[in-house]
């Protein structure tokens, strides 16, 4: 199957290894990955910060870029949440029936990575091997907007050698929240401190999630505290072929 990758602007720029990992996993499963180079951003940062007029053309650009794709894979649940929660509303506000029709036609073909693998492709064991203890952080949008449930967990359970550990109070926000982290740095920092303590209490070597945004935030706190715990996107664990020593 041909799968178009929307890697998300921040993954493209800051976390290229996530896009590479998604490509590797999907190709290993026998699919063809395409990457339309016209893609930039889904518009979430602008929209959620209240810059609604500025978000509309970004959304339009996304829809134009992917309108003809059969399946779109997005390794970022918050971007998918943005699309599912707000794209129709934005198109309606633009008063452009053709745009709205395009949005409605495209939305059902957009999948977050674990949705694509578990639901659409029906795969749980992607042939990965990762002999480490891993704590899974269920990001807010993945839990409360996409309702991913145990899809990422099922993928992680199927990884050879991986030991999955539960984070206490795992569904509490890490405090990132996009521009919230800079508009309310003190509160965001306090939320991060709690999340960090909960992660460290697990003793896991690696913390993973389906969103690099949360992981970037968690990494920032862990690194500032000189912790050795690594942050890795789910895709990177699923791409791993690392064998136990």
């Amino acid at each position, binding site marked *: 199957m041909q799968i178009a990758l929307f*890697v998300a602007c921040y*993954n*493209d*720029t*800051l976390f*290229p290894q996530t*896009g590479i990992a998604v*490509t590797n996993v999907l190709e290993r499963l026998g699919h063809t990955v395409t*990457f339309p*180079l*016209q893609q*930039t951003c889904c*518009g979430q*940062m*602008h*929209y*959620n*910060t*209240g*810059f*609604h*007029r*500025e*978000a509309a*053309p*970004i959304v339009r*650009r996304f829809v134009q870029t992917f309108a003809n794709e059969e399946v779109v894979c997005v390794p970022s649940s918050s971007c998918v949440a943005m699309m599912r*929660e*707000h794209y129709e509303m934005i198109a309606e506000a633009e008063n452009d029936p053709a745009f709205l029709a395009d949005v409605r036609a495209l939305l059902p073909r957009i999948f977050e990575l674990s949705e694509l693998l578990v639901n659409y492709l029906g795969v749980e064991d992607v042939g990965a091997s990762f002999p480490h203890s891993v704590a899974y952080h269920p990001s*807010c*949008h993945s839990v*409360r907007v996409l309702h991913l449930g145990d899809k990422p967990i099922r993928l992680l359970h199927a990884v050879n050698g991986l030991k999955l550990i539960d984070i206490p109070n795992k569904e*509490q*926000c890490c*405090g*990132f*929240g*996009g*521009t*919230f*982290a*800079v*508009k*309310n*740095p*003190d*509160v*965001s*920092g*306090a*939320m*991060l401190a*709690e999340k960090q303590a909960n992660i460290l209490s697990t003793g896991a070597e690696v913390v993973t999630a389906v969103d690099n945004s949360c992981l*970037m*935030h968690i*990494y*920032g*706190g862990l*690194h*500032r505290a000189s912790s050795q715990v690594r942050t890795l996107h789910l895709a990177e664990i699923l791409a791993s072929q690392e064998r136990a020593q």
Partner: protein
Amino acid sequence: MSIRVGKTSKAPDFPIAAVTALENAQLRQNVHHATEVIRNKRALRVRETADWQELRNAAHDIKQHTLKHLDHYLIEFERNCQQAGGTVHWARDADEANAIAIGLIQQYGGEEVIKVKTMTSDEVQMNVALEKAGITPHETDLADMIVQLGEDEPSHIVVPALHKNRFEIRDIFRKKMSLPHLTAEPEALAGAARQYLRERFMRVKIGISGANFAIAETGSVCVVESEGNGRMCVTLPDVLITLVGIEKIIPTFQDLEVFLQLLPRSATGERMNPYNSLWTGVRKGDGPQAFHVILLDNGRTKLMHSEMERETLDCIRCGACLNACPVYRETGGHAYGSIYSGPIGAILSPQLNSLQYSRTLPFASSLCGACYEVCPVKINIPEILIHLRGRVVRDDQKTISGTFSQMNLAMKGAALVFGSRRRYEAAQRLGRMGQKLFEKNGQLEHLPGMAGGWTRFRDLRPLPKQAFRDWWKAREAARPSPESEPRP
């Protein structure tokens, strides 16, 4: 602390007020503990309620229907309440509500009142107005009494003194009740409060209450509570004045079956409130012999024109969103600068009052969605927060300082960058070059301006040398394409 909902809107902005709260370790510990206890109890009760989602949907539908036809239901309530012997007054705003209340108290010759379960009276700052008119208000809900005696402000919608632990409460009681040897044992504190309150229940002849629900069909009013002090307040006085926000109307008595299942489970994690008081007008020889209802607008009708904003008025003040909110958990309620705190406060205060007094409240959320998940009437709080952020941004952009603010310039710039592949790729290259100024030990530890908010608490990995698209392009270039294959 001044109150943002009301006329004196001098409360500091949320990010600044939050710092004060964060520095108070005792407060945070109290808030963490109290919200966790209620949250866990609630979760237990919700899990055992098989039709919880259907109940939420029903409540949402009833509320939306009522608000769409509010004019009709308000008139119906007025008619039925008056038929049963009550008197209905209409108050456009805080001043009118207070003037009506003071007028009534003076008419009945009262110099003091007992009050219960009326956050709406805090919204209109009724106690301040009463005291100015020479009338002494006595809060009789235990937590409200603690707040009043402590010369404090409520910090939670359901548990107003949630930020105080029993040792702090003991100190307040010792001082204000002249009980220097009082201990912090719950029994001792409850005993002291009981004695203090009973004396007032027996003495004071005028009561002021709020309402959880006002039923159009029967003209009845309903208050639910845990202590029985509310029952005292609405039954013992000769005169009862009930202040009701106009959004508290529900059409029929039967609608209570939905709300009385949702409210106690969401608010305190109980299947049913210990005290559910319902009264209709006046009954000779039984309870208050004069009953007045003040129906209060105070900004509520401003929300009626927009479907999204109107949803805010569905709120039944259960406080579940506060207990679920990771932001409230860190700051407690006072940082919100309004009696309505937490996620619901962040959308209610800016809409009831002028948005200009609460510009930072819609941004006081990480949009994690925990509030929406627990809301018993399904108010999509994150969506309304984003909507209000849009209003703040558009207002800002009309001013010079807003146009040239760092945030506006950054967002405008980013929008340009995301608008073209060429600019986007150039920005990636520029970022890689620019960050060299700030890179230290392979990390970004101090960034200037807005981004400094990030690096105060967090490190940042620098941009890698190669963006994903660079890797992709290199891979495509290395792959033999059909055109480059030698033709036969």
